Every structure is written in structure tokens, then in C-alpha cells.
């Protein structure tokens, strides 16, 4: 499996480990992943880091039967576009459920999981996935 540049892995840890994105203080738009420039405000934008709550809804999803290398043990798994309650959408795995258990609009919350490992001797990559929110 091709391994990611270590510096990139390291730089993205706040984003992947705990959903740190950015927000434009001028127009109050939240960005995930982080943006350095607000496309709406351009030079007037004031970008600051923003910690996202990790709560959101399933916007769309699909079941993956033939995943990329490194995911052989996980198939079949659910891959979803999650809309965070702060607005941004991101793509992530939904864990602990199968296709019949989910529908569009279901509430989900972020969990911290292993994403993949470079090899048996390589780095272990961690990051966000989502699970169904506890009911009641």
C-alpha cells in the first residue's frame, strides 16, 4: 500500500483525530477540512480554527464491497457523506451497523478509529469515522 508522506500525516492529525477545521469570522461559514482562505469573502475573510462537535446526519451513503487495499478485512462497509451540524459535509465510514440499519437523515456521531496501517511494520493511521447516535 502506498504510504502517505509522514509530514502530511502529521499535519492533518488535528483534523483527522478530532475534527479541527476552520471558520470565517467575517461570514460565519465553517470549513471542514480546514481552508486558509474564505472563498466567499476572499481578502475580507478572517479564518480561525474551529473545533467541530462531531455530531451530524447521514446525507448520503453507499455500501462498499470492493474497497481499496488495506480494507480487505472491513468489507462490506458503509461509506457516507456526513453533514456536520455546523454545516460542512465530509466522507467517512459508518461503523457498527450494516446497510439495512441506516437511512438518509439518521443522526451520527464521530468516533476515533484506525483508518489503515502502512504495513505490518509501518505507521498506523488513526482518524474519524462515525456511528449511529444512541437513541434515548
Amino acid at each position, binding site marked *: 500500500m502506498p504510504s502517505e508522506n509522514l509530514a502530511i500525516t502529521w499535519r492533518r492529525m488535528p483534523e483527522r483525530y478530532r475534527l479541527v477545521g476552520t471558520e470565517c469570522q467575517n461570514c460565519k461559514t465553517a470549513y471542514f477540512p480546514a481552508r486558509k482562505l474564505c472563498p466567499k469573502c476572499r481578502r475580507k475573510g478572517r479564518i480561525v480554527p474551529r473545533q467541530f462537535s462531531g455530531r451530524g446526519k447521514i446525507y448520503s451513503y453507499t455500501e462498499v464491497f470492493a474497497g481499496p487495499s488495506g480494507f480487505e478485512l472491513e468489507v462490506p462497509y458503509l461509506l457516507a457523506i456526513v453533514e456536520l451540524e455546523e454545516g460542512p459535509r465530509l466522507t467517512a465510514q459508518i461503523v457498527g451497523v450494516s446497510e439495512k440499519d441506516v437511512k438518509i437523515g439518521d443522526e451520527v456521531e464521530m468516533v*476515533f478509529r484506525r483508518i489503515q496501517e502502512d504495513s505490518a511494520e509501518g505507521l498506523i493511521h488513526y482518524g474519524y469515522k462515525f456511528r449511529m447516535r444512541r437513541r434515548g
Partner: protein
Amino acid sequence: MAVAVGIAGYGACVPKYRIKAAEIARVWGEDGARIEKGLGVFEKSVPDIDEDAATLAVEAARNAIELGRISPQAIGALYVGSESHPYAVKPTATIVAEAIGAGPALTAADLEFACKAGTAGIQICMGLVGCGMVRYGMAIGSDTSQGKPGDALEYTASAGAAAFIIGREKEEFVAEIEDTFSFTTDTPDFWRRQHAEFPSHGGRFTGAPAYFRHVIGATQGLFEKMGTRASDYDYFVFHQPNGKFPLEAAKKMGIDPEKVKPGLFTPLIGNTYSAASPIGLCGVLDIAKPGQRILLTSFGSGAGSDSFSIRVSEGIVEKRGGYKGWRLSDYIAHKEYLDYALYAKHRRKLKSL
């Protein structure tokens, strides 16, 4: 204790998947009912393919922060005790710190002492917090333990985590830690060599000279140190490698088994190793009333026990009441069973995985 120290937040995490002892017994041609009865364990937790000691520790830590309402930036020390750290060299504690948003002004380390590495972390945090070196310390016990296929340990070795934030502001306590006492000897009851996938153990030798001697030695040592006795406590939480040993230890010390049962979770989730007695403490803290006293004694093979005398504080009512995250009872109820084939895949027991 010179300065009052206490638990300002706590949280647990148990994976969703379970396998029944009877299902493991079926594969190895054993009598499931006899195993259940002999071990007092009916099912155990199994981590998902993407869970390990670091991910379980992160989830327990996040729960502790939410319940405790403590800023991760105020945590000055973080220790993760485990016998299944994901890396041989590279700390789990740094992964947890980054994931909860603690540091970089932070001291951190991984601890190992079989099943008592989590409580060893609590003691280190008590020292650092008590002497004023840090404002809050976080101690976590987390494991995804493995038993050799077909070995007796396979019926119990499971996965879970528990995290505690130790502080010294009395008004923030959910419980005060009144005192601690440890009992440690060199006892070869259980070990795993570097690069070995599964542990080796001394079979029946793990009982009397190991578990019982240390659990009873630490518990009675704490009684003597503090001038307390069994009747002073409302709950006892002992390390729980199976469902039987904690009740037997209680019997040997003249402790009412009804005081042990509320903190005994191994029958439902198996032996979560470094998290076993810490998860028991989380379960008791979820139900205990202010003023009640809890005696916690861990056990780690090799061997040692740490005992703690804990008094539940008034502050627990508000923190527990306002907590919206997952409680131990949620994790225990939220489960899905695996058969042995799926379990083998989850635990990567097949050589080619």
C-alpha cells in the same frame, strides 16, 4: 493523604461486539455450560477490526472529559496502562493526548503491569496532582487482550477501557481518593515475551499465590494503614479475570458478596485486563450515592495489587446528571453477537490476516 486528591471525571468504553463462551466452547469441543459455570463468564467483548487499545482509550478519555467538564488543555499528565499497546515503540499516550486536544504542555507515558497498569497510572497522577506539579492528571487502563485459540484464556480475554481525571479541587470531585496501598512481589504467574503473539500462564498457579495473595494483601494492607475494615465500605471492586475470583476473594476476607456484585462486569464483557477493575469502578460510580465508600483493588500478573479507598462526593450528582454521553450501562446493552468465524476475523487469529 497530605493533600486531598480525587476523581474529577471518569468514563468507560466497551466495544459493541460480543462472543458467547458457549460459542467458543462449541469450536473446541468443550461443554459450554460447564465453562460458563466454572469461569462465571457468559460472554465477552470483541473489538471491531478498526479498534485497538488507543481508540478505546480515546473514547473513554472523551467520556471522562465530558462528564468531568474539564478542559483538556488543563490536563498536565496523561498515562495509558495496557498490555496491548498498538506499537512496541511509540507511545499510546501521545495518540490519546492529540485526539482529546491535550498538550503540548503535558507529560505523558505508557505504562505496563499486566492488568494493573491502569491503577498504577491513577497512583502516579495522585502523586503529581497532590504535590502540585500538575493541575489534572489523566489515567487510563485500556486493552484489547488476546488468548491463544483453544486456551482457557480465550473464554475471557476481552477489550475495554476506562479513564479517570485526577484533580485536587474538592468542589470538582465526583469522589475523593482517601488513600492507596500497594502489594508487589515477583511472581511468575503470567507473561508474554517480546514478539510473542499470545501470553503464557501458570494455569492453576494464577490463583492462590498470584491473584488471591496480592488482592488480599493490598486490601488488608489498606485496611491496616487507614484503620478501616470491610464494614466501612459500601462497595468493593476487585480485579475480575473471571466471574468467580472477585467473589472468592470477598469470601476469604469476610466481605458480603452483595457489595462486590454491582462492580462485577466480567460475566457480561469478559476480562478487559487493564480496564477490568477501572470499568468496575466506573459502574459503581454510576450508581453510588454521595458519602458512600468504595474499595477498589486491582491485580496485575507478575505480580501486584493497588488498593484505593474512595469516598463518593456531593459533586457526583450534578456531573452524572448532566452527562449526555455513553455510560457503561449503554455500552453493555449496545451489543451484537459474532460467531467464532467472524470473531477469528475480528481478532486476526487467522495466520494470513
